């Protein structure tokens, strides 16, 4: 089942435009064909008005809180009536952003989130590409073992590791309030390793055999041949990896007590649970902080939405 899907994925893209019609007659490919291409081909499976209304309702439910978050962050005094959901020029202010910035240093928080996330992405890409390439295109003793470990690891529940990791990293190694202590448990994202392996596996092995016969070193083959061919995989892996540390709360919350090193998610959460009660417009300030925390992730995923599609996620999770 899953191999079928993987084999089908590259074909889908190749058939996209040139001989699309004949392919679609036999087997339509809804996921990868764009909106215009399928229109009118098969009226039968086109969507009824009911389903379209359902999708629209879904989009409203998913997006409204984000809209409301932004509106709320601009209100001088919180207006929770129905009318408050619409912008009111007399009630608009940027003050909430100043207020939250006075309580928690937003730029510092963003920078800390960036270092935490960037560190995880760095380790994941560097070491993930190495092991992904080795698993896909190299023959060595213990390869099966490494592959099995990679699959098993994705099933280890984090709650079981919580206490021992805390004991080790905070108590034994004294890495509390350090970036390394935050990064370590997430350093190499196994799902990203799997994505790398899948992409390297799709490259013809003869390509690498030929390069080896020509005397190229493995590192050079990886750097000059393999990596340029899997650039989309790197983008996908970065996006997949980004969500984890950027949004992670529990672990950095446990290892950081010093506000100057806390990621924004942690300092905002501390603000919500401790300080908010004493502020004049707590919700305005909380929502302003929330907008700042949400904006980079949302912007990134809207910008790269093409890379974050079902086939990528599907092949990486299904195995």
């Amino acid at each position, binding site marked *: 089942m899953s191999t*079928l*899907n993987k084999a089908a994925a590259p074909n*889908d893209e190749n058939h996209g435009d040139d001989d699309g019609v004949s392919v679609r007659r036999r087997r339509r490919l*809804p*996921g990868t064909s764009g*909106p215009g291409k399928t229109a009118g081909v098969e009226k*039968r499976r*086109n969507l009824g008005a009911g*389903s379209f209304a*359902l*999708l629209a309702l*879904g*989009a409203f439910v998913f997006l409204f*809180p*984000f809209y*409301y978050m932004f509106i709320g962050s601009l209100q001088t005094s919180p207006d929770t*009536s129905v009318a*408050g959901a619409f912008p009111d020029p007399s009630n608009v202010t940027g003050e909430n952003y100043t207020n939250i910035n006075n309580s928690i240093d937003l730029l510092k928080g963003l920078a800390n989130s960036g270092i935490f996330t960037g560190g995880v992405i760095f380790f994941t890409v560097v070491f993930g590409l190495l*092991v992904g390439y*080795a*698993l896909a295109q*190299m*023959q060595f*003793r213990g*390869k099966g073992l*490494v592959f099995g470990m990679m699959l098993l*690891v994705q099933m280890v*529940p*984090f709650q*079981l*590791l919580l*206490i*021992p990791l*805390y*004991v080790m990293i905070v*108590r034994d190694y004294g890495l509390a309030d350090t970036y390394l202590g935050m990064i370590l448990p997430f350093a*190499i994202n196994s799902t990203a390793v799997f994505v790398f392996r899948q992409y390297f596996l799709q490259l013809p*092995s003869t390509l690498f*055999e030929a390069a080896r*016969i020509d005397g190229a070193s493995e590192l050079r083959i990886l750097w000059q041949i393999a990596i340029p061919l899997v650039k989309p995989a790197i983008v996908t892996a970065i996006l997949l990896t980004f*969500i984890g540390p950027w*949004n992670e*709360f*529990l672990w950095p919350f*446990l290892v950081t007590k010093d506000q100057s090193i806390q990621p924004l*998610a942690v300092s*905002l*959460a501390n603000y*919500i649970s401790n300080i908010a009660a004493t502020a004049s417009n707590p*919700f305005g300030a909380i929502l302003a902080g929330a907008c700042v*925390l949400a904006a980079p*992730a949302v912007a990134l995923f*809207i910008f790269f*939405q093409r890379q974050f599609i*079902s086939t990528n*996620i*599907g*092949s990486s*999770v*299904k195995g």
Partner: protein
Amino acid sequence: MSLPSADGGPATLVTAGHRADRQPAPRKRKNFLGRQPLGLLFSAPYVIYILGVLAYPLGYAVYISFHDFFFTAPGVQVDRPFVGLDNYITVLSDPAVQRSFANIGVFLVINVPLTVGLSLILANALNRVTRLKTFFRVSYYVPYVTASVAVVGVWLFLFQQDGLVNALLGPLAPNPSWLTNSWLAMPTVALFVTWKQLGFFILLYLAALQNIPDELYESASVDGGNKWVQFWNITVPGVRSASVLVTLLATITGANLFTEPYLLTGGGGPDGASTSPVFLMYQKGILQGNPDVAAALGVMLVIGVLLIALIQKRLVGGKED
């Protein structure tokens, strides 16, 4: 594994070497480690990471849960006697723990069916829509890619006593309000997590829907099967393996619940009605300094999740497993 014919001459050499590698000879050591022994070096950082940050702590968690363990300053050697099942007995006899497991039960009963049902229905509609497809897809996964801490802020705002939700409900608004009502706190948390995670599961179902051949739908409609018949007899069985995965992942996510009870209901309130086991692990292990009890709670939680997962796999997976 990869085509031996592709590399012609060297392949036969290597195969010969492989057979002979039982007698140690310097020339053949390379072959003993495989054709590209450098692969071991390439894998080394990842393997060290897994062993150090995942495998070792996993064993350590079990060790801690069976010993009288407490925090010490780095480098201090103390005696940590083996106490058998004492920590487990402490955990099981604690009413707060029992409450938290019951809470997670409520959470899963609401969250898992809602997640599976809604994500399949929305993915199915999304799979067939032609207009605004990208817009819908992006709007569905926006909550998933956003930090819980950020969206918790707006949910607090929406669901507070005089918030927008209650303003819309008017006289139907619950009293006390959603998150401070001991009957509604956990269901509201479950609803929040469903909303937050749905986009990811929609993407999983979208991938699975690509595997259902169109001919099935075509012949079904030739035979006069309407949309409902097609949905129940083709779509639902066709994505069964994805349904198993979605059920398991939703359960595991639910068992890991921490941020939401910590922030949405101010630490599992009202009166422990929304505490979660992971929240208690934090409270007992790190705030109160009983890592041994917290580790035992973690082990029990994982065993519980594994049992539920096995049952779910039977129920959702049907006969094919």
